Every structure is written in C-alpha cells, then in structure tokens.
C-alpha cells in the first residue's frame, strides 16, 4: 500500500514538474511572441512618426476679413467721392476685404523657409501676394546673431506699418501715407536682414538692406517691369529696449516717365471730310524723364500695462520725401495710434492720421486729416468683431469759394477670422 502510494506521489511529482516546465515554456514563448509583436509594431510607428515630422514642416495659416461699410458718400452720390482711396466711396457694401492663405515650408534643420501667400480679395480672383525663399544663417550657435536673405516678392522693409499684419491691426486700413507710398505693401527683389536677439538680454537690434523693383504690386499688368537701370534701395534699422521700439527707414529710387511722341488728332466736327481750322489737336512730344524718389521715415512704439485692464500701446510714424507722381511733389504724413486692451475680451483704439501729398506752403486743399475710432470684441482666440468709425477731414482751400469737407465718413463692422 505504501509502495503504491509512493509510486503515485512520485508519478504525480514528475507529472507536475513536467506540467510546470511546459507551462513555463509556454509562458516564456508567449512573452517572446509578444515582445516580437511589439517590436514589429515599432517599425510602422517610427515610419508614422517620420511622416508626421515631415508634415510638421508644412504650415498653413491665413485670415479673412468680412465687412459691412455704411458710407456717408452713399447718401450723397459720386460727387462726394472720397479723396482717400482707402475709404469706400461707392455705397453701403457687404464685402470680403481680405481672404488670405499662406503656405510655409520650413525644412529641418531650420536654415531656410519657402512661402506662398495668396489673397482672395474684393474681386474674388486669387492673386499671389508673396512668393519668396528665405535663407537663414546663424553666426552664433544659439542664433543670437544671425542673418537672413530673402528673394522674391515680399513685404517692403520700410516703416512699422507694413510689417504689422492686417490680421493684427486695430484699424481696417493702414495709414493714408503708407497706402499712397507703397501700393500693395510688397515688391520684388532681394532683402538682407541682420539681427541680434538674445532672450536673456533686454534689447534686440535689426538692420535691413533691400534692392527692389520699385513699382509695388497690383499697380498694373506691367508692374513687374522697371525701366530704370538702377534698382530702388531701402535701408532700415530697428532697435528695441524692453518695451520701447524705435526705427528709421530710408528709401532711394527713381521714377521713370515714358516719352510722349508728337501726335495730332483730327476730329471732323462738321463731317465734311475736310480738315478745317480748329479740328486738329496737337500734342507736343515730350522726352522721357527720370527723377529721384526719396522717402524717409521714423517710427516708434511704446507698450505698458494699464492695470487692471490690460496692455496699452502707443505707436507713431512720420513719413516725408519727394518724387511721388511728379518731380516737384514734396509729401508729408504721420499718424499717432493709441490702443488699449481691456481684459482678454475687449479692445479700444484711436488713430489720428494726416497725409499731405503736396506739403509746400502754397499748396492748399489736398491735405486729409483722418480720425479713426474702433471697438473690438474677441469672440474667441480666432475671431474678432470690430466696430469702426472713420472720419476724414479735408483741408479747405481758401481760394475756392464754398469749399467744404466732403461727406465721406464710414461706419464699419468687420469680422476677422484668423487660423
């Protein structure tokens, strides 16, 4: 009996041991299988991670400004057409002022950038606003001193307003001077920018030098052609210390005026097919002309906190020069801009903007002083709703009897979507 029991116990132990080894083998095998499966999963994961990294090099951004303008001029007819080209003079309109879409490709490591920037504006037709390649060079490994070189069509590096995007600006339009001097705010050429910026220091400094065609964009089908031999030049420097910014800009270029050939036009007024006296108008030939185009400007910005409301900004810019439109013109323009943030939800701003295209003492009646008031409500981090009142005041010419300020004020409601 004892022998039988011993045999059963030994057999059970051997069987149990074999079973335990088998179970351990199975467990070990399953663990290895699992490990192989996880390793196999890593491969597509790494591929996917690589794809995502590539996609991150491509950035899409843009904004849209949808407006309703209620214009005084609409009540008064076209005789009261606004002097200021940025004011809607032709009625009360719903329209899309700007609908912009930017595609930026930034390879890694970050030593260049490629930009295509499209606009779908009032006409509805897409136009290329910007298309450029930008090459970066760090002179110190931390990038505190560096340079970039831009080729293509880009923002003209003159003054403060141009580089400040319309998607951020308080007012619907830039100042009158900027609109008159830099149509489209862009030009074609090359721009070299040096910069010093170190996060641990309270100041930074930038200096630009650009060579441009000089005709801007959107000024006609031949705006890409420049008949002057030399290219227009711009120099700009901007210094920032803490919350103070100061910039100086200088532009030198030339304006080419095409020659006018001698011509005569016959109008057969009495339809007798004979050239009678007084039926021919003669236009004398004029030689081509080339005259200097000089612009200089200074801009300053100051930012401070007005507690408990929020940030306050004071901005100002002054332009002067000659050679816009004609050889003898001497222009002058400036603006002062106050902007107040009220919590994260609201904002207020006011701008006084003067533009005098002919600032000579004896020229009267062409200066416009514009007051601009705006109130913002930030719906969310992407959407801003603005209520703006634009009030241009015309300089009166004492030599003209009955000269009076034109009815060209505009009340504007605008929704801005940014992504």
């Amino acid at each position, binding site marked *: 009996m004892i022998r039988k029991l011993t045999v059963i116990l030994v057999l059970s132990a051997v069987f149990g041991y074999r079973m335990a080894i088998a179970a351990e083998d199975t467990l070990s095998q399953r663990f290895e299988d699992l490990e192989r499966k996880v390793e196999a999963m890593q491969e597509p994961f790494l591929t996917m991670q690589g794809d995502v990294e590539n996609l991150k090099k491509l950035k899409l951004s843009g904004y849209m400004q949808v407006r309703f303008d209620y214009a005084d001029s609409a009540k008064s007819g076209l005789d009261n057409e606004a002097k200021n080209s940025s004011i809607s003079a032709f009625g009360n309109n719903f329209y899309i002022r700007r609908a912009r879409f930017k595609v930026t490709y930034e390879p890694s490591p970050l030593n260049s950038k490629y930009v295509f920037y499209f606009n779908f504006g009032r006409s509805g037709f897409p136009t290329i606003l910007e298309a450029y390649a930008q090459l970066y060079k760090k002179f110190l490994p931390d990038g505190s001193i560096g340079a970039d070189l831009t080729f293509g069509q880009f923002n003209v590096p003159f003054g403060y307003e141009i580089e400040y995007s319309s998607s951020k600006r308080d007012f619907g339009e830039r100042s009158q001077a900027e609109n008159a001097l830099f149509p489209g705010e862009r030009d074609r050429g090359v721009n070299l920018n040096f910069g010093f910026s170190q996060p641990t220091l309270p100041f930074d400094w930038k200096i630009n030098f650009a060579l441009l065609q000089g005709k801007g964009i959107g000024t006609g089908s031949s705006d890409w052609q420049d008949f002057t031999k030399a290219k227009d030049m711009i120099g700009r420097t901007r210094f920032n210390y803490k919350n103070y910014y100061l910039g100086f800009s200088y532009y030198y270029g030339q304006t080419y005026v095409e020659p006018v050939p001698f011509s005569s036009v016959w109008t057969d007024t009495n339809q007798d097919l004979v050239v009678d006296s007084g039926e021919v108008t003669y236009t004398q030939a004029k030689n081509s002309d080339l005259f200097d185009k000089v612009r200089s400007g200074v801009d300053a910005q100051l*930012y401070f906190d007005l507690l408990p409301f929020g940030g306050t900004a004071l901005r100002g810019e002054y332009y002067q020069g000659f050679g816009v439109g004609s050889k003898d013109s001497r222009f002058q323009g400036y603006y002062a801009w106050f902007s107040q943030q009220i919590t994260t939800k609201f904002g207020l701003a006011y701008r006084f903007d003067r533009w005098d295209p002919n600032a000579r003492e004896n020229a009267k009646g062409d200066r416009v002083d514009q007051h601009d008031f705006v109130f913002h409500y930030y719906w969310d981090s992407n959407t801003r709703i603005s209520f703006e009142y634009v009030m241009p005041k015309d300089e009166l010419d004492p030599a003209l009897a009955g000269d009076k300020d034109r009815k060209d004020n505009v009340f504007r409601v605008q929704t801005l979507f940014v992504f």
Partner: protein
Amino acid sequence: MKRRVLYTFLVVALGLFSIFSGAVLGRKSVTLKGSDTMVILGQRWAEDYMKAYPDMIVQVTGGGSGTGIAALINGTTDIAQASRPMKQSEKDKLRDRFNTMGNEIPVAKDGLAVYLNEANSLAELTLAQIKDIYTGKKTNWKEVGGPDAKIILYGRENNSGTYVFFKDNVLKGEDYAPATQTLPGTAAVVNAVSKDKNGIGYGGAAYAKGVKFAAVKKDEKTPGIKPNPETVADGSYPIWRHLNWYTRKKPSGDVKKFVDYVLSKEGQGIVTKVGYFPVN
C-alpha cells in the same frame, strides 16, 4: 416710450454685465498651463492654495512649455509654466495681440539631470561628451569610458522647454541626432532609461526613480558634480535653469494673490518638497 427706455436700459445693462462678468466675476479661477516638468509642482501649489482659499479654483494642465506659451498668447490661460525662456517670436505675438511684453516670474530652480541606467558602469560625463552623444558624434559607450555597447538616446518632444533648454545650453544650438527617441514627458524618459541598460536621458532631477544621475563635469579637469540642492543653489552643477511663470501683464487681482503665495515661504517650501530648488 417708457418701455423703450426700459428695453434700452436692459440692453445696456446686459452689455455692461457681459463686460464686467469677464473682468470681475470670472476671475475666481486661475489657470496654469505648460511645462510637463512643472506640472506636479503646479498641482501641489494649486492643492495647497485651494485649501487656504476654498473659493478659488486653480486649474493645472501640462502639454509642454511651448503649448503653455501658445495658450497665453491665445488668451486661454492666465499663467504659462515654462522651463525655458520665452522666444523672441513668442514675445512678438503676445505684444501684437495684447499690447503687452509679457511678464516673467522665476518660481523655482531646476538642475537638469542626465539619467543613466542603474546597471551602467559609467558614473561621469563631461559636458562635451554629453553634447557629442546627443548630436550623434559618439554612438558607443566605450567612446566615453563605458561598456562596449550602442548608446540609446531618449529625449523630449520639440514643444518641451526641457528639449529647448538642453539643445541651447548643452548642445550649444546644434540639432539632436536623428536616432534620439522622443518621448512625451520626463516621466516617460526616466521610465525608458530605467528599462534600457544602454539608455541615456535628460530631465528634471525631481523625476529620478529607477535611474541614476551621471555626475557632470564642466571639462576634463573639473570634478563630476551631481544635482542636489547645494550644487544647484551655488551653481557648481553646470546644467541648471530657472523654472518660470509667464503672465500677459503684471499680475493683478487673483493671479497676483496666487503669485504672492507661490513666492512666499510656504510656496517655496513646496518647491523643495517636490524635488526642485527655491528661487530665494
């Protein structure tokens, strides 16, 4: 006529209410977003502060320093926690949106530790060796005095302040080696190095469980130093940084009260408990 006046009044009152409800009533909560390195610290401060002020709600979320600063620029957080300084481009965005230059408040100090697996026989690394390892110039432990084995690199994602700080200050602006495996948080880096005997990682000293710190040498001649309260406070440990808070403007109201608490003796006491180093 009276009804019209009443309606006008109601509309004006509603408008004013909506204005001031955002400015006054809505300020009973404070939100913190950003650095994963600082998320535990932020949570501990929040818990302690809410015990003292039960009417306050302090919400803390991570996501990385870049994410926190982006939220500050978008207006969706009151305070961004960041383990790196704000970039110039970020300051510009904040200025353009809110007319403000941002406000930096150092709230703690952190020694950035270099993690090694506990089985790794190597104990010391110079700053130059760490740079060479992470830029891919040295790929085997024996090149820096360790065992003959391939070095496995673990690091953070590029929205992390730790990633940026390490790149700027240790790699001197050079890019990480492509072989670096990016992980979504310091805890994940520590976990990966603790399981990989050939692994190396970097991150806050407060997270070091199951790994050992490499003693870091400024150069070949100087002794290796490990991060601890004394070596970080006196600057002898070479890889240290401020952990910062960023607000849009100078703090006021409830945000200021919370900032004052964090910089107080109690708040700085929590810094030490969590494993970082006080600013004072």
